[in-house]
């Protein structure tokens, strides 16, 4: 729309009307060099901070993926060998568990004879009054009748010399020995 402006003169004179008929246009912006700078900064820092490290990571990823392919192929080949030799993992696992179980069979008979021999090496007529072996905490609690009070210390020393005894202690008042069995 044209910008109309009116100006009144003296009453005797005729009125002149000044009309600005030029359109009200915005002048085009001057070319802004800042935009170019922003684009350049964006491109440079994208290259520096994103593209450069990313290309390094891409190489790492490619190497890892290549290794993964090689290892998968190798694993498949060995799996095929396992099948070819009819190696059954489940049976091998079960066999291992059976061997583990058999390793846990405590030789209590040997323990009895060794303990009795150790006691009777100190007092030949001594006898075991009670015995309590517990595999859960690997201890043997013994109550032994001994005639001499010094014998308790000697029996304890004899117990400590036994191969399967890790530790031994006694309370003379209860006539009791507590032995920790080594695995």
């Amino acid at each position, binding site marked *: 729309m044209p910008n109309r402006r009116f100006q009144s003169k003296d009453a005797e004179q005729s009125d002149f009307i000044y009309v600005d008929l030029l359109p009200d246009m915005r002048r085009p912006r001057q070319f802004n060099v800042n935009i170019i*700078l922003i684009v350049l900064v964006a491109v440079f820092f994208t290259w520096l901070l994103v593209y450069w490290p990313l290309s390094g990571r891409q190489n790492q*990823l490619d190497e890892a993926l290549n290794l993964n392919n090689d*290892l998968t192929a190798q694993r498949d080949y060995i799996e095929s060998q396992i099948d070819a030799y009819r*190696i059954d993992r489940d049976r*091998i696992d079960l066999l291992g568990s059976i061997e583990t*179980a058999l390793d846990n069979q405590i030789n*209590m008979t040997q323990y009895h004879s060794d303990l009795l021999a150790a006691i009777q090496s100190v007092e030949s007529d001594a006898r075991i009054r009670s*015995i309590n072996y517990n595999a*859960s905490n690997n201890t043997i609690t013994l109550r032994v009748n001994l005639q001499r009070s010094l014998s308790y210390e000697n029996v304890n020393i004899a117990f400590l010399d036994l191969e399967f005894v890790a530790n031994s202690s006694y309370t003379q008042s209860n006539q009791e020995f507590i032995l920790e069995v080594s*695995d």
Partner: protein
Amino acid sequence: MLSKRLNDIIFIAIIVLVLIGIVIARFMVLSTMDGRIEEIEAENQQLENEIAADISLVEEYRYENIPTASELARFIPSHYSRNTLMYFVFAQLELAGIRDESGRELRVEIQEDISYPSESRFNELSNRFSANRIEIRFNTSEPIDEIDNVIEQLYGVDQVFLLQNVRYEASESEQVAPRVVINFVTFYNLD
């Protein structure tokens, strides 16, 4: 028309925003990439471990005859029957010289599917298999010999029996026979 100072501030703000955007994009893209690389490398490590285990498995068992499933089931049976186990234990006790006679007060009790605490030596086996505890009680005048006989008898059979607990206490009176309690654990592969 913006003033020159305002124009400069806007320019610097846009530069800063662009840099912040690039830095955020960098961390997002690189963290995704790093995560993927770590995932592949962990998978590679697992594959290497599997391959090493498989190679040793092949080398060890290539020419070795692994016992058949039925042979292994003799040690850890795959079928459980309470009555069968009970009769089996009584039979073994009889072979060890422990008969259900008067004065003996022979008792056998079975506790099924028991679990053991992590510190117990039976924990690993009881996690893998069904563990049953057998408690044997009897009176005897020769506790050590008879305990040894029972243990040797049950250790001598194919089925795995593990000694869990033995206890006896001689009475002050010689006329009262000591009471012996022996606990064994046996396992069943019921999967």
